[in-house]
């Protein structure tokens, strides 16, 4: 387990899991991004799972940081799955026209891990 910012990053096999249970402030989100990428750089991983079940609200800044993390990880050869978004959060983001292109989504952690297994098994995608 690696803790630098407030959010612990867990390793499950070749996958990194960050379960966000605190309110995600701008700085916390940026710290999580930096932590994730540095763990990825040092230890490597085949997939990232970001669990946001605990978040009641996600503003566009945090949404952008999460999406960017996914895109950055993709550049480093890793797929990212965002899991557990609440209906209200999804509705708000969609209404604001904010599409989190570049990250995969799943209903819960279990499905996220299953999706990663499929993605890693499949040939690398061009995007």
């Amino acid at each position, binding site marked *: 387990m690696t803790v630098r910012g407030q959010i612990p990053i867990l390793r499950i096999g070749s996958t990194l899991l960050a379960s966000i249970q605190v309110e995600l402030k701008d700085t916390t989100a940026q710290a999580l991004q930096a932590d994730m990428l540095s763990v990825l750089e040092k230890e490597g991983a085949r997939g990232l799972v970001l669990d946001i079940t605990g978040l009641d609200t996600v503003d566009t800044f945090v949404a952008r940081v999460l999406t960017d993390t996914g895109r950055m990880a993709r550049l480093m050869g890793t797929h990212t*799955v*965002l*899991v557990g*978004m*609440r*209906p*209200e*959060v*999804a*509705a708000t*983001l*969609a*209404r604001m*026209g904010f*599409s*989190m292109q570049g990250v995969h*989504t*799943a*209903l*819960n952690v279990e*499905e*996220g891990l299953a999706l990663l297994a499929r993605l890693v098994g499949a040939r690398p995608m061009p995007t």
Partner: protein
Amino acid sequence: MPNSRDYMARLGFDAQELSSRRHFFQLTDEDLARLAALRPFAERHNDAIIDAFYNELLLQHPESRLFFTDQAVFRRAVTAQKRYFLQLFSGVCDLDYMEDRLRVGTTHQRIGVAPKWYLGAYAHYLRLISSHLFREQGSSPDSELSNRSIQKIVFFDMSIAIETYIAAGVEAIQRHQSAIRELSTPVIQISERVLLLPLIGTIDTVRAQQVMEKMLARVVEAQARVIILDIAGVPVVDTRVANHLLQTTEAVRLLGATTILTGIRAQVAQTLVQLGVDLSTMHTCSSLQEGLEMALSMTGRAITTRGA
């Protein structure tokens, strides 16, 4: 019956409304003072006026008589009426007074006294008060002024009562609308992880938002992988509707599920392409059947024919 303070707030009956309404009804402090001065007159004639009111009008009319078939109810109504009558001559017209008048309106509404009974009865009542007033005080500038003050407060009272009638009607409509809304977004589970939402009727912005919210909530609740949105019953699909559909699809994707749009008629396809709407990010099918097959294959199932 709703709590009358809450009800006052909902109808916007506050100090500002009170003063504006009094101004419009020209119900001045002099009027209130005149009414207060008439209090002894009211007390002297209270019984006679109310008795005449019931005996000449309410008990003579076959329909209004039906409200008073029970003696206890009748006695209660007469007592309340006497109290009500005296309050006209209290010389006070503040928020408490308004609240009291509002309660009269809601009570009438609740027991089914229609506005026509209310207004007809009040007109008769007003004639009775006037005739008693002029009989006792004669026709003079003074009694004319008194009569006018009585008219003002009576009409002021009626305005509040009528508004409670209207508000009750509006609330009934709102209840019906919410019932219709519930009926208009039936999300059906058709397989373990597949939901179906058949949309029927016009989609406006409000409805589109309800559809989205209901869909997203159900996707999470049922942990659905796929939701089929059937728009065969939507008469017009224009850019706005298409935009709502795209937003909903994106929101569903954010949850980790997939939307399949089915029931796209030839005409709808033509319109959308001519309008330049790009639905290429969505899974689309012409028929619900194809959509169902696609949904099942996404969840690792299939419909097969049993061995021949």
